[in-house]
């Protein structure tokens, strides 16, 4: 397993470089320009000057190599300097956003907290709700519990998040005045009072996303459990006189986890990617909002950096999923 992990990690380096090149070319080739949000009153000559000042008119390969250098040399040096107080990165150009003219990494660090708290909590909550519901639904297939669970899950999945978000705002913010409709990123949690405030402002976006995630994961959990409950080993285990609890929660559950682990592992990087629509509806302004704003403004350095970090996480978590397969089912071997 260890050699497998090391081999995969080494293989990931060329893969990621290739992915970064494809992303760069794709974003560069996409129609749109950093000038799209500048008012039309700014004359064309001035627009050309601005593009020149950004360096956006350089050939693609020059910009790509520059980005590689900035990402793999300058940014780590900056981080090093930040930790140890050295100044190796003095005078080096960091990756700078075209929209705000500030280092992209700083913006990412600035936005990490709200994304991790809101999206992370909702994902965790979604998983925690989904697993028991999926297990029990499968165990009592076609019971009332199962039918209602199916119904809610399907509604939750077929109604888009912009819509659930809007309905929640109208109910809880406009009519009941329970929760604020706008997320305050400047809020610092220092005491009980501000903690409650934080919980209140997180409530609605977390609800929206947790419903959506739980809907999806519970379906996979249920179907996988059903598949396994019919297997011969379950009959054998029951025949041996094992308690129902042990049969279901130990044997069946463990064997049913593979698709669920896959789906969850695919979902974790998207926590970092943020939830574009939900973040916009509630103005959480996390990484998802950053990415979509950068895409709309054709802010290539930001899009490239964010997507690349996202790609690293995807590769990493898919690797973790593969390792977990081996733990869940020792018969799976990779070497």
């Amino acid at each position: 397993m260890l050699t497998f992990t090391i081999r995969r990690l080494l293989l990931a380096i060329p893969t990621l470089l290739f992915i970064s090149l494809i992303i760069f070319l794709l974003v560069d080739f996409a129609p749109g320009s950093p000038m799209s949000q500048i008012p039309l009153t700014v004359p064309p000559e001035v627009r050309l000057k601005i593009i020149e000042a950004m360096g956006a008119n350089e050939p693609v390969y020059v910009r790509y190599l520059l980005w590689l250098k900035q990402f793999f040399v300058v940014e780590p040096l900056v981080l090093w300097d930040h930790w140890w107080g050295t100044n190796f990165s003095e005078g080096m150009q960091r990756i700078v956003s075209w929209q705000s003219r500030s280092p992209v990494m700083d913006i990412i660090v600035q936005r990490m907290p709200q994304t991790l708290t809101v999206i992370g909590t909702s994902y965790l909550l979604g998983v925690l709700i989904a697993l028991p519901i999926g297990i029990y639904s499968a165990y009592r297939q076609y019971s009332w519990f199962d039918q209602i669970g199916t119904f809610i899950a399907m509604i939750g999945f077929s109604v888009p998040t912009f819509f659930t978000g809007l309905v929640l705002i109208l109910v809880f913010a406009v009519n009941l005045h329970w929760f604020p409709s706008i997320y305050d990123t400047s809020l610092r949690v220092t005491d009980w009072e501000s903690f409650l405030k934080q919980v209140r402002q997180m409530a609605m976006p977390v609800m929206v996303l947790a419903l959506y995630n739980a809907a999806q994961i519970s379906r996979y959990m249920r179907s996988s459990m059903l598949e396994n409950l019919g297997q011969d080993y379950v009959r054998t285990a029951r025949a041996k006189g094992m308690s129902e609890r042990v049969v279901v929660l130990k044997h069946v559950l463990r064997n049913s986890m593979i698709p669920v682990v896959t789906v969850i592992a695919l979902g974790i990087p998207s926590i970092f990617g943020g939830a574009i629509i939900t973040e916009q509806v509630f103005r959480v302004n996390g990484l998802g909002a950053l990415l979509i704003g950068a895409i709309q403004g054709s802010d290539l350095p930001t899009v490239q950096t964010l997507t690349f970090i996202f790609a690293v996480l995807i590769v990493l978590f898919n690797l973790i999923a593969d390792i977990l397969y081996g733990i869940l089912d020792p018969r799976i071997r990779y070497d």
Partner: protein
Amino acid sequence: MTDLALEKPRSQWADVWSQFKTHKGALVGLVVFASLIFFVSIGPLIWTKDPTFINPDAATMIKTRNKPPSLEFPLGTDQLGRDMLARMMKGGQVSIAVGLVAMTISILLGTLVGVMAGYFKRLDGPLMRLTDLFLALPLLPLLLVMVLLFRDPLAAAFGPEGGTFLLIVSAIGVTSWMQAARVVRGEVLALKEREFVLAARSIGTPSRRMILRHILPNVVSPIMVAATLGIANAIITESALSFLGLGFPPDFPTWGRLLFDGAEYIQNYPQRVFWPGVAISLTVLSVNYIGDGLRDALDPRIRGR
């Protein structure tokens, strides 16, 4: 068991159907789905109002805006006085077609990649790295590039509507197969080591038959889940695409679009979001139950129990 040999041999599909019939949810789902298809395909022949017609006379137009359901407009009208029933029918044609076709593309692609990667060790690395690549690609620029490259050639080859349809279903299909692929691969990896597969392999079953006879039937259930979730996803994504100028012309109603347009009016005219919302949910629910029934019916362990 012994009686079975004496009975007249029955075809497998008759067996499947008789099992399917016993599944109430599946039957209801089938009926609902059939009536939805009937509604969107035969409906416009009976209810012949033009879904994009706006009364050119300003005074009449103003009077027919945002009407609640009535005999003249059974589902009411939208903000420009267009008939909602006609729009729901016309929109359903596209939404259901896009949902089914895009889902099929994404499931076929996902299953193919997943099975290949899980079963053949040599393909695992390259195919899974390809999956990683597609997962990492930012969707929006990818779609914009697809429009840029393929819209005009497709429109020239298949006409504007056919070209747009093809572009949309392939855009959705190509960008949504990865989850199915990862899930199927995981299952195949585990299946490959199971006794019955090892047994089949030891008697020299060729790979093709191994996959078709032994592997695929056992990964049907996650595929079914991916398929039902995929339909909902495709219908919603279609509406998002039209906001990028990638979809059908802006006055062309689809369920996702009707839902999106109606959201603005939700406080004053809740029926505007109610109809498309119900239609999408019904489609997804019915497909889900049909899928449930099919899976039970196809599973020989459950069948005949």
